[in-house]
Structure formats: structure tokens, C-alpha cells
């Protein structure tokens, strides 16, 4: 996470995939107990990953990472249950260690259609996100390819990601 906060993509990707396995096991365990589906657990896993990403500035590098991730995971679970109007009374008190007690690497498809949402973004945002995030070009390369300045590229990627996350959040809300 510390490397990820500095912008080290490889370390950050490694961390996210490790956490996704933990999160998936956590959500599957909690949701199965109240008779929810694995798709819901996958949606929540993705939502928690997005929250971790979007709120990574709230992580204090001098503090342990696990309680921070656990707090986000639990918050997203409670928020999800509240929205789907289920009782929260059967969610037992738990420790932060519960999160890493099991792994689950069997990812399944969740309900989000990222390509479809991407298509709804303005042209400039969509293009810069596709090039930087999906095709993995550097900011400088994208800047020269699109005839934009580097800071312009960064700004549209940042805004585009924000818009993307907002559309995911909107999609969840009516459930």
C-alpha cells in the first residue's frame, strides 16, 4: 500500500489482487450466512476495491493496513445490507483478522458492465482512460498521441475515473 500510494503500479496491483481474494472470502462468508448469492459478494468485492482505490488517501502509512481495509469492507457490507433492507442483527462482532483468515481466488463475473459505462463518458475522458488504464500506455505517450498536454491527460483520467465510480454507485442505489 505504501508503494501503491507513491504510485508503484506493480506493487499496487499485487496488493489489490491479494485483497480481492480476502474480500471475496469475507463477503461470501457473511452473505452466505443470510442466504445471499455469490454475485452479490462479487459486486461488493468490486465495490470495496473501488472504495479502497478512491479513498486510498485516507490510509495513514504509519498505521497497520489491515484494520483500515477491514473497516472499509465492513462499512460497505453494512451499507449494502441497509440498502437491500436486510436485518443487520445477524452480523456478529468480528476482529480485523477475520478478513485474512481465508482466501478465495475464484473470481466470477459481477453485474457491472464497465465497457458500457465507459461509453457513456465524454469522448476525451473515455479515450484517455482506455489508453492509460486499459491499454497501459504512459501518460506521456497518451499526451502525444491525443495532442493533449500531460496534465490535461491526468485531469481527464482523474475526472473520468470519478465519473465511472459515480455511475457504479448510481447503478447500485436503486436495488
Amino acid at each position, binding site marked *: 500500500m505504501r508503494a501503491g500510494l507513491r504510485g508503484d503500479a506493480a506493487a499496487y496491483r499485487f496488493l489489490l489482487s491479494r485483497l480481492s481474494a480476502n474480500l471475496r472470502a469475507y463477503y461470501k462468508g457473511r452473505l452466505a450466512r443470510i442466504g445471499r448469492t455469490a454475485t452479490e459478494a462479487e459486486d461488493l468485492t468490486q465495490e470495496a476495491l473501488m472504495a479502497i482505490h478512491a479513498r486510498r488517501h485516507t*490510509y495513514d502509512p504509519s498505521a497497520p493496513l489491515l484494520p483500515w481495509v477491514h473497516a472499509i469492507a465492513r462499512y460497505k457490507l453494512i451499507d449494502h445490507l441497509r440498502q437491500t433492507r436486510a436485518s443487520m442483527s445477524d452480523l456478529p462482532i468480528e476482529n480485523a483478522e477475520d478478513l485474512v483468515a481465508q482466501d478465495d481466488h475464484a473470481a466470477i463475473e459481477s453485474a457491472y458492465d464497465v465497457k458500457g459505462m465507459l461509453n457513456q463518458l465524454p469522448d476525451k475522458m473515455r479515450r484517455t482512460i482506455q489508453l492509460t488504464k486499459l491499454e497501459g500506455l504512459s501518460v506521456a505517450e497518451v499526451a502525444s498521441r491525443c495532442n493533449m498536454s500531460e496534465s490535461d491527460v491526468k485531469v481527464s483520467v482523474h475526472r473520468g475515473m470519478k465519473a465511472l465510480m459515480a455511475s457504479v454507485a448510481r447503478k447500485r442505489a436503486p436495488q
Partner: protein
Amino acid sequence: MRTDELIELLSTNVEPVDHRQTARSIHIAIAAGVIVALGVVFFALGPRTDLTSVGALIPALFKIAATAVLLIPASIFLIRLARPGGEHGTPTALIALPFIVIMVLAVISLASAPGSHWKGAILSDKWLECAISIPLIAIVPFAVITWAVRQMAPTDLARAGAFVGLVAGCVSAIGYALHCTGDSVPFFAVWYGGTIALCTFAGWKLGPKLLRW
């Protein structure tokens, strides 16, 4: 979307972020709230006219200092509550201590005065203005601080909301203390303490709605 794709999406060309931003933007929001509260008092209400005399300056400074004693730990707790999991290991109940101290001081002050003076000491002639002004002035600081906390990720929304309300109430009371002429300790305890507690309660109720992310 598959979760692997999402991870790719999030971790390709990941932008560095500054973790110190959390505390900084809340500090800035609180400072902005103080400026707004002072602005309202100086330009809309007007500071009390006798502020240059020692007899008025000392009670005004006492009210400001006593509120600041509440504001400083409340801000520290708020910054901790704004982080995920910050509610664990933050002794938020300790914030009641300054309230209790002021209440004890008020009771001592009342006990040393004859019973016939009690009504005047508590009600003064400004109690209604005080009870209305502090919550009203607190609205803008409350909105600014709420905005700052929304950029973070509180996971106990009711408690975080309560502390937003508490901080906004203190900020407002500090500004209002420059206008208010109710100088007795019991007046301060009842009307400042009461209105700040009211702001805290409002924040506690509004937190889950306003701070959700």
C-alpha cells in the same frame, strides 16, 4: 466486469496520492468555519460595544478559551473519525469532560450566590438571542466541515456526524462570544453548552445521510 479487469483498471498508471491531505483539508475547513463565524459576528451582529473595557474583555476571553478547550480535542477526534476504522481506539466519550467541568463551575457559582440571583444569572436578558444565534451561525461551518469530511471515509457515520456538529457548534460559539453580553458562568454553561450539545445532536442525526459514501 470481472474483478481481475477491475484490478487492472485501478492499478494501471496509478496516480500517487498524499495521505496528509486528510488532516489538512479538515483543518482548513475548520479555519474557514471560524472565519465565517467571525465574519457574521463582526458584520451582521456587531461585536459587543464594551469590548475595550477589562470587565467585558475577561468574560469574553473566558468564553472563547473554554470553548476552544472543547474545540481542540473535538477536532482531533474528528480527524481520527474521518478515517476508516478511526472509531476504534478513539475515546470519544472523553469529550464530555469539558462539559462536565463547566457544569460543575456553574453549580459552584450558583451555590455561592443567593437564590434570588439565580434566575438573572441563568437567563440574563440575552438567552433567546444566544439560543438562536449559535445554531444559526453554525450552519455554514457545519456545511463546510461536512464537505471536508465527505472527501475522507468515515465508517461510523453517526459519530463522525456528531463531531462535525460539535466542532461547528464550538466554532460558532467562539464567534458569538464576541457579541454576547451574558457573562455569568451559569449562563455560559446552560446556553453555550446547550446549543453546542444541540448542534452535536443534529450532526449525529444528519451524519448517516450527509456523510454516506
